[in-house]
C-alpha cells in the first residue's frame, strides 16, 4: 500500500501528539508489535505471559497464532 499519494491541501503538524517512533517509551510499548521468533515448546498463551513479565506490561496483549490457517 505504498502507492501514489495525493495532496489535497498543504498542512503542517502542530504541537500535539507524537511521531510514532518518538512516543514516550511507555506509550511506545502500548502501541507496539513484536515480530517474535516463538520458542518451540511453550504455548502461545504462556509466551505472551513471559512477554508481559519481561516488559512489566499490564495492558492488553494479543497474538495472532503461528499456523492458525494451515
Amino acid at each position, binding site marked *: 500500500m505504498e502507492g501514489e499519494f495525493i495532496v489535497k491541501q498543504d498542512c503542517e503538524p502542530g504541537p500535539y501528539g507524537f511521531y510514532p517512533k518518538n512516543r514516550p517509551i511507555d506509550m511506545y510499548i502500548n502501541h507496539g508489535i513484536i515480530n517474535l521468533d516463538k520458542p518451540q515448546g511453550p504455548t502461545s498463551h504462556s*509466551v505472551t505471559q513471559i512477554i508481559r513479565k519481561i516488559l512489566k506490561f499490564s495492558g492488553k496483549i494479543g497474538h495472532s497464532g503461528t499456523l492458525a490457517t494451515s
Partner: protein
Amino acid sequence: MPILLGKATKIAKLLTKAGKEYVGVLYLHGDVSDEALLSALEEFKGLIFQRPPIKSTVKRRLRTRRIHNIEFIEKQDRYVLLRVSVEAGTYIRKLFHDIGEFLGCGASMRELRRTRAGPLRESESITLQELERAVVMWEDARDDTYLRERIRPLESIVTQLLPRIVVKDTAVAAIAHGASVKIPGICAFSGEIRKGDLVGVFTLKGELIALARAIVSSEELIQLDKGIAAETSRVIIDRDLYPALWKKDE
C-alpha cells in the same frame, strides 16, 4: 508469531486477514516427473476452490482463495519443498492434498512453517532473549534505542496493509471520538482507495487515529470539497491526545 501490545490488539483482525507465506514439504504418494509436477503447480496458481477441512473452526462451505505464488525450491525422491504465498484462510494441507489428486498419485503435507504474516517476516523476527536484553539496556543503562528497534509501532504495519487518509490536527479529536472523516479536514490520501475499502486515518505526524470505511473513492476525493469521505469503524488513538476544538468555548 506477531505479539500485539495494548492499542495494537485493535488491529489483530487486519493481520489475520493479511496474506501469508509458508514453506512446506509436499510428500508425493507415487513417482511423478519434474515436468508433470511443475505444470501441476502452475495449475494451482490464481483462484482456487477449497472446502474447509472437517477439523476447522469455520463453516464448511466451498469458498475461493487466491494462491499468489507456488515456488518450487527442491525435490528429493518424493519429497518436494515448496514456498507458497496465499490469501488469508487458505488451507495448505488441503492445497497439497489437491495437488496430489490433480497429479493422480496423491500427496500429503509433511512439514509446514509460516514465513510471513502480512508484512511480518519470520527472517526479521526476534527471540525472547533479544527482547529481554533490550529491556535490560533500558532499565540499567537508560538506553531505549534497542527496545525501540525490537518493538515496531503499529503504524509501520498498518501503512503496509491499508490505504491512507491524512487529516489536519484540528480534525483529529472528532474522529478520535467516533465522528466520520469529513473531506474539508483531509490533507492527503492514497490514490488507490475504492468505495467500501477499509482505510487507515492518520495524523500529520503519522499516528493512526482510526480505521474507517471509505464511502468515496480516491477519484471522487480529488473532485469533492465537502461531505464525508469515510465512516470511522475503530478508534485507535488516545482520545485526549489532540484537543477537542469544539469544546473551546466551555
